[in-house]
C-alpha cells in the first residue's frame, strides 16, 4: 500500500474483503423484477427523449423549439451513455438475457466501438484502477494527474489539454482505445492497430453519418440548424461525461498506486485499492441518474457488475464499513470535486506538485471529520 494510505493489517484487509463479498452476494441474490423494470423504464425515457429531440429539430427554425430539441437530444445521449450504456457494458444486466441490454451486443450512442471500449475500460481501468503505468485512464496518457507521473515541459499545457479533451471527449475515448503508447513501445502490432482502426472507422462513420449528414439532410432547408443542434447535443454530452468521469478518480486525496504496491494483491487488498482510488459525488436523485450513478464511483468500483441503481442503496453501509476499518470514503458535491480536479490539473502542470501544504491531511483523518 502507498505511504499515504491507511495501514491495515493483512487480516483486516481480508476481513474487509469478506464483508464486501458478502454485501455483493446479498444484492446479487436480491436482483429481480424491480431492477429489470427500472432499466427498461430508463430506456423508454431515453428513446422518448431521443425521438422528441430529433422531431423538434424538424421545426428548429423557431428558437425555443431548437433549444428544446437540443435539450432533449442531449439528455437522451447522456442517459444512453451513462445510466444505460456504461452500465450495460459492465454486464450489470446480463442476467436479464435480453440482447437489447446485454454486454456482448450493446452499442452506445458514441463513436467508440463497444468491443474496444470494454477492453480498455472493463479490463484496463477496472482491473488496474489507479496503478500508475497500468491504469491507462490516469490522464488518458495526455494529462498529468498524479505527481508520480514524471514532469516534462509538455505538461505546462495540462489545463489546456484537459479543456480541449472535455470538448471532444467521445473522440478522446475512442482514440484512447487505440493504445498509442503500446504501439510506440512496440507492444501492440500493426495488424492489431489496423483491425482496431477499422472498427473505429466503421462505428464513427455511422455515428457521424447519422448526426451530421442524415438527420440534417432529412430536415431539408433546416440542415445547418439541425447540424448545429446535433453538434451541440454531442458537445453537452461530452462536457458532462468528462466532468463526471474526472471527478471519479482525480480529486485530491484519491490514492494512486505503483505497480510494486499493487503486485500480488489479495482479494481484500483489491477491494481496498478500488475504494482508495475512487471518489463519490453527492447530489439529488436526478443527478445520480444523469451521472449513470458514477456519482457512486466507490460502490461502482467495488461492484462494477451490480446494477447501478443499487449503489445508492448500499452506499451508507459501505461508508459505515469503511468507518469501522478506519478507511477513508471520499465524497463531496460536484463543484467541490470538480474544483479539486481543476486545481490539481493546474498544480501538476508545474514540476513537482506532490501534495504539500494544506494537502497533508491524510485520508483517514478526513473520514473522521466527514
Amino acid at each position: 500500500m502507498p505511504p499515504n494510505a491507511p495501514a491495515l493489517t493483512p487480516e483486516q484487509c481480508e476481513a474487509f474483503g469478506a464483508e464486501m463479498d458478502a454485501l455483493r452476494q446479498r444484492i446479487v441474490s436480491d436482483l429481480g423484477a424491480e431492477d429489470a423494470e427500472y432499466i427498461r423504464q430508463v430506456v423508454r425515457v431515453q428513446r422518448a427523449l431521443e425521438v422528441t429531440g430529433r422531431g423538434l429539430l424538424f421545426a428548429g427554425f423557431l428558437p425555443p423549439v431548437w433549444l428544446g430539441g437540443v435539450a432533449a437530444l442531449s439528455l437522451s445521449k447522456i442517459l444512453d451513455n451513462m445510466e444505460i450504456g456504461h452500465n450495460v457494458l459492465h454486464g450489470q444486466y446480463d442476467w436479464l438475457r435480453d440482447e437489447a441490454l446485454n454486454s456482448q451486443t450493446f452499442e452506445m450512442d458514441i463513436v467508440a466501438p463497444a468491443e474496444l471500449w470494454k477492453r480498455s475500460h472493463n479490463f484496463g481501468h477496472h482491473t488496474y484502477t489507479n496503478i500508475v503505468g497500468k491504469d491507462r485512464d490516469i490522464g488518458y496518457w495526455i494529462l498529468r494527474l498524479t505527481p508520480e507521473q514524471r514532469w516534462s515541459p509538455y505538461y505546462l499545457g495540462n489545463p489546456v489539454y484537459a479543456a480541449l479533451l472535455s470538448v471532444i471527449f467521445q473522440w478522446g475515448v475512442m482514440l484512447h482505445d487505440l493504445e498509442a503508447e503500446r504501439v510506440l513501445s512496440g507492444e501492440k502490432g500493426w495488424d492489431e492497430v489496423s483491425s482496431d482502426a477499422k472498427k473505429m472507422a466503421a462505428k464513427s462513420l455511422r455515428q457521424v453519418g447519422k448526426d451530421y449528414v442524415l438527420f440534417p439532410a432529412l430536415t431539408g432547408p433546416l440542415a445547418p440548424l439541425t447540424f448545429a443542434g446535433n453538434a451541440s447535443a454531442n458537445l453537452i454530452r461530452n462536457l458532462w461525461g468528462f466532468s463526471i468521469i474526472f471527478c471519479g478518480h482525480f480529486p485530491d486525496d484519491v490514492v494512486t498506486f505503483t505497480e510494486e504496491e499493487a503486485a500480488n494483491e489479495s482479494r481484500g487488498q483489491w477491494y481496498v485499492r478500488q475504494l482508495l482510488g475512487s471518489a463519490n459525488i453527492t447530489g439529488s436523485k436526478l443527478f445520480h441518474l444523469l451521472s449513470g450513478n458514477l456519482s457512486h464511483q466507490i460502490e461502482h468500483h467495488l461492484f462494477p457488475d451490480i446494477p447501478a441503481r443499487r449503489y445508492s442503496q448500499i452506499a451508507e453501509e459501505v461508508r459505515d464499513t469503511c468507518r469501522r476499518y478506519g478507511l477513508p470514503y471520499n465524497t463531496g458535491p460536484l463543484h467541490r470535486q470538480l474544483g479539486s480536479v481543476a486545481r490539481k490539473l493546474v498544480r501538476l502542470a508545474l514540476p513537482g506538485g506532490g501534495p504539500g501544504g494544506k494537502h497533508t491531511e491524510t485520508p483517514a483523518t478526513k473520514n473522521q471529520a466527514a
Partner: protein
Amino acid sequence: MVPLLEAVTAPHGPDRYLEMLNPMWSLREVRAKIIDVRQTARGSVTLALRPNGNWRGFRAGQHVAFTIEIDGVRRTRCYSLACSVYCPDGLLELTVAAEPEGVVSGHLHSDAGPGAMVRLSQAQGGFTLPDDRPEHILLISGGSGITPVMSMLRTLCDDGFCATDRAGRVTFLHYARSADHVAYRDELAVLAAEHPGLRLLRAYTRGSGGELAGRFEPTHLPSLGSDAAAWVCGPAGLVDAVRALWDCTGISVPLQTEQFTAPAAALPADDGEPYGEVRFTHSGRRVANTGATLLEQAETAGMNPQFGCRMGICLTCTSRKTTGSVRHLHTGELSTEPDSEIQICSTVPVGDVAVDL
C-alpha cells in the same frame, strides 16, 4: 427503406424503436402473442400463439426456441410444435409438460395468460416427415414427447394420408402414466374414428384401460411392412429402448429419434469432491471436472480462451454455457439456467457442464 431505417436508428437498430409503438413489431424477430392457454391433460398445458409476419412456417415435427419474460428475466426453452403444418387459423400450438422445478413450465401452468408476448426462433430440427411418404408410418411417443408426432399425425390426417384403409397406414403408439395424462386424448379418439388407416395404441405405465400396458417392449411393436418408417420422441429411457431394439434385431425400417434433455438434477448444497465432465463444445474437447475454474480447466486442456482480469469483473472471458450448473468462486452463487453467459475465470463447474468454447 430498411437501410435508411437502420441508419437513422443506429446504433440500436429499428426494432428498439418499433417496439415502443407495438411490442409485436420487429423487422426480423419472430414475436408471438399468446391467444389461449388451456390445461389439456394432467400435467400439461397447451398454448395457442399468433406469430407476427416474420414467421416463415415449419415442417411437422420441428421445434422452436421459445422465450418468455418472467419477472423481467428472459427464459428460453425448446418446445416442439404440435399443430398441423396447415394450421388453418394461423395459430401455432405448443404443449408443455410441467416439470417439478421448471421455472418456465411452472409459469406457463400457473401464471401465463392470453395477451402476453413471447419471442420465437424460426422452426428448427431435422425430426420431420419426408415429402415422399412411406406406406406405413409408425409414430412412438412418451409423455410430452407427443407434441412433434401429434403435429405429424395432424398433418398426415389433413393430407388425407390415412383417410381410407387402402391409403397409407399410421400406427400411433403412445406411452403415458394413465389415461388422464394423455394430452390430446379426445382428439386422438376422434381422429382414429374418422381415419380407418390410423391405429391407436395407448400404453399406460401406471393405469389400466390402454390397448397395451407397461413400458416399451418389443411385443408392443406392430408388424412393419417393407415400406415403413418410424419416429420416436420421448424421455431418454424410451428412446434408448427403441433404439436398442432396432440395433440388436437389425430392423431395416428407418428410425428417427428425438429425445428430451433431462432437467438438471438436484445439486448438492455445498461443494464436495468435484465430479462430472466438462465439455468444450466448440473445440470438441472433454475433460473430467477437476473443480478448478472453467478457464483453468480449458487452459489445462490445451485451449487458449480470451481473458483479461481473471477475477470476474472485465467480462473478457464471457462464454456461453449451454447446459449444466456452475458456481461462482467468490460468492458461491449457483447458475443453473441453460444457454446463459458466464465468466469462465470465476466459475467452477458443478457436475456435467457444456461450454461453447
